[in-house]
Structures are given as C-alpha cells and as structure tokens.
C-alpha cells in the first residue's frame, strides 16, 4: 500500500490544466505499484480542490483503473474532512464511477452508488472475505441478482473478486474487501 499526497501539487488546486499534470503523476504512481497494490490518495494539506481539478486528476485516472488497463490495482481516498472530497464525489458520479473514501476514520462511498450497492459493499467490508452464495443468503437475494451486484462492485474496483472454481457453467468467486489496515 502506497500513499500519494495530492498536496504535493499545491494546497489550492483548481484548473484542468493543473489537474492534467497531476493525473500523469498519479497514473505513474499507480503503474509503479505491484500488480494487486493499492494507492491511498490523501487530501491531507489541501485547502481547496475544485471539481474541474478533481475530474482531470482523480476521476479520469480512476476511469483508467476501472478500464482494467492497470490490472488489479486499487485506489482509495483518505481525507481529514469529508467536504474536501466533494469535487471528487461530484465528478465520479457524473462519470458513473465510485471510490471508497475514509473521512475522519469512517469509510464512505464517493461518486455513483445505489442503496443496493451500498448494502452489498458494506457487508463485504464487514466480513473481509466472503462468497456470493453467502451474501445472497444474508441479503435474502436471488443468486443472479447478487452476482450482478458483486460484478458491478468488482468492475468499479470497490472489491476484489477471485475465481476459486466452477459449479456447472457458473464461476465461483471469493470476494475480498479492498480495505487494508
């Protein structure tokens, strides 16, 4: 797990031009991680983070992560105050992306998320490791509905999904929280 301080680019970050430069550095940091490594993007020391900068730097870099180009690497946000991450939240939502964020010690989801996603993700985070079958039972869901929820969370890099076998034509996955101590 590596930390990446946005404040290295300044304490007030606003224009798209500044965000473009910062994105290149962020993508380089993500590429330098081990194949399943995690980058903690910290907002410590930031005074203003505009929506335009947030989009250029964070949301667009996260788009690359979600595209699969960076393998199983993950990225989370850590902020001393929830409102500092507002620009990231807005722009991720516009791009229909979502990221985990720890604000003052509490994990929340930034960006686009539904109550169903929240419910499923929260359970996975609580358990640390689980299976789709176990989740479907606990959430009282049809297996297919649970598979869809889990697939969406995995696609957004909010959980790790590991194939552990097959049952008939269906893949069996073990699900892991991406939150690391």
């Amino acid at each position, binding site marked *: 797990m590596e930390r990446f301080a946005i404040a290295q680019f300044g304490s007030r970050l*606003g224009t*798209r*031009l500044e965000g473009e430069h910062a994105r290149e550095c962020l993508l380089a940091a993500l590429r330098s991680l081990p194949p399943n490594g995690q980058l903690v993007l910290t907002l410590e020391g930031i005074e*203003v983070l505009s929506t*335009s900068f947030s989009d250029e730097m964070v949301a667009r870099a996260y788009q690359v992560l979600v595209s699969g180009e960076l393998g199983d690497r993950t990225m989370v946000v850590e902020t001393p105050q929830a409102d500092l991450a507002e*620009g990231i939240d807005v722009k991720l939502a*516009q791009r*229909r992306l979502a990221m985990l964020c720890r604000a003052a010690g509490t994990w929340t989801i930034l960006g686009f998320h539904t109550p169903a996603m929240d419910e499923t993700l929260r359970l996975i985070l609580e358990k640390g490791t689980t299976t789709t079958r176990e989740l479907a039972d606990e959430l009282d869901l049809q297996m297919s509905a649970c598979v869809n929820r889990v697939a969406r969370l995995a696609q957004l890099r909010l959980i790790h999904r590991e194939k552990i076998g097959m049952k008939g034509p269906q893949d069996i996955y073990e699900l892991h929280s991406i939150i690391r101590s």
Partner: protein
Amino acid sequence: MTRLTIETIDDLIELVLHQNTPSIDLRDVRFMDPYALLLLELLRFELADRGRRVGLELPKAGAVGRWMRAMGFAAQGRAVDGRLRDSESALQPIASIDEERNVGRIVDGFECRLVERHPLSEDGRRSLIAIMIELFQNIPHHSNADGSIADPHGIAAMQDYENSIFLAIADRGIGLSGSLALRTGYEGMTSREALRSIFDQGVSRFEDPGRGGELQRIARIVRSWDGTLAVRSGNALLYFDETGGDVYDVPEFPGLQLGLRLPRHILGIGMLES
C-alpha cells in the same frame, strides 16, 4: 437612470447599442455595481468594433466616478492581478483573464483583496475560491472555443457592500449558444435554450460526461445561500435572487456575463450595522 446594476444595465445597452443614442449618459448615476461596470467596459470595445464613436458622460456624483476609475474602468493598461486600486471604496479592480495558467494567480489576488478588508470563515473562503476558479477558467475554456474571436476580453471584478460581496465576470466571446454549437446535436440553439440546457441539464460543449455541470452547481450553491445570480448570454438573461427568478429576454450583446451577489454572512463576514 440613478442606479446602474444587474437589474438596469440592459436598458442602457438597449439605448446605446440598439437605439443608437449618441452618448452613454451616466450623469445621474449614483450607484453602480461591478456587473454593470464590466458590461460598460465591454460596451466600449463593442462600440469601437462597430466603428461607432459614442460620447461618455460620467456620473456627476464624484464618488461614483472615483470608484469607476479606481476599479480600472477605461484604463489603457491593466495588470493581471489588478493592482490599480487607489480608492478606499474600490475592492478588486477589473482584472483581465486570458490564459488558464494565470487563473490561480488571479484568484489569489481576489482573495487577498477580500481578506485584507474582511476576515473570512474557513468554509466561506474555500467556497468562494472554488467558485472563482471554476468561473474564471471558463473564459479560456469556452469564450473563444472555436477560435473565431480576436480577443474575447475576459474580465472580472469584485466589490463589498453593506450586506453582500459582489463578484462579476464577463467576456465578449462566443457566448453559451456559440459554445454549445460546437457539440453535435446542439447546433442552432437560441441563447435562451442554451442557458436552459446548461443550467437545467448541466450540458457542456464536450461529449465527455465528466465535463460540464459547474455552472449548474454554482447556481445551486448561490440559490442555497439566498444569493443573487445573473447569467447573461446573447439575448437571454437567467436571473434569480432569494425571491425567485427566471430566464428573461434582454438586448443582444456578445459573450457571457455573470454577476453573483453573495450575502456576507455566508463568507463568515459580520453584517455591517446600518
């Protein structure tokens, strides 16, 4: 006309630009806000471009004339950080906004002026800086997006009042409908339709879903603060204050002009006793 403001400047534009009066008569003006000042400044450029020589009758009220000069009205040269102030009343003189790389410095200058005069709350300061960054960078991003304008004359100014802080930003660029026309499917919109698309739907000239929505978001914030917002483009004006608002017809003028009147308490500035 005794007050030249967001609410009255269009009467003057109609007279000068469309009814071809021989002079801009400000003799009776006893109050002028920064939005009107910026439009007046751009009106000078517009008249010059049209080859019209129009006289300017300055306000008889000395304080207004001094404020206009201190704000840099009709100044020949203009420092980017707007360090032209020579009057106690003028807060932030007209500053030029040209390139995106200068936006951070200009915002710092505006903040500096305000903080010199008023201590701001941390939240208020951060909100105002974020708003200025978004609005100022819109000028290099959009005012000449098709490269058709020689100089869009992006300018901004700020003034403090008894109950409010007033920020104005203006340009003489391609306007909202001109900017949206660069996107397939949005060509040929009227100014009113462009304003509606941008403020109601968060549309921008980019297909990229991450672009756009900033003006819509700022309007939402200003509304939640019971502030006033005026956004004028072409022949349409979106205006609202704490009592409500709508989109109105106004005389045609190029570019985009914005005025934000923010209650002082939102920025953590104590209200002056009147």
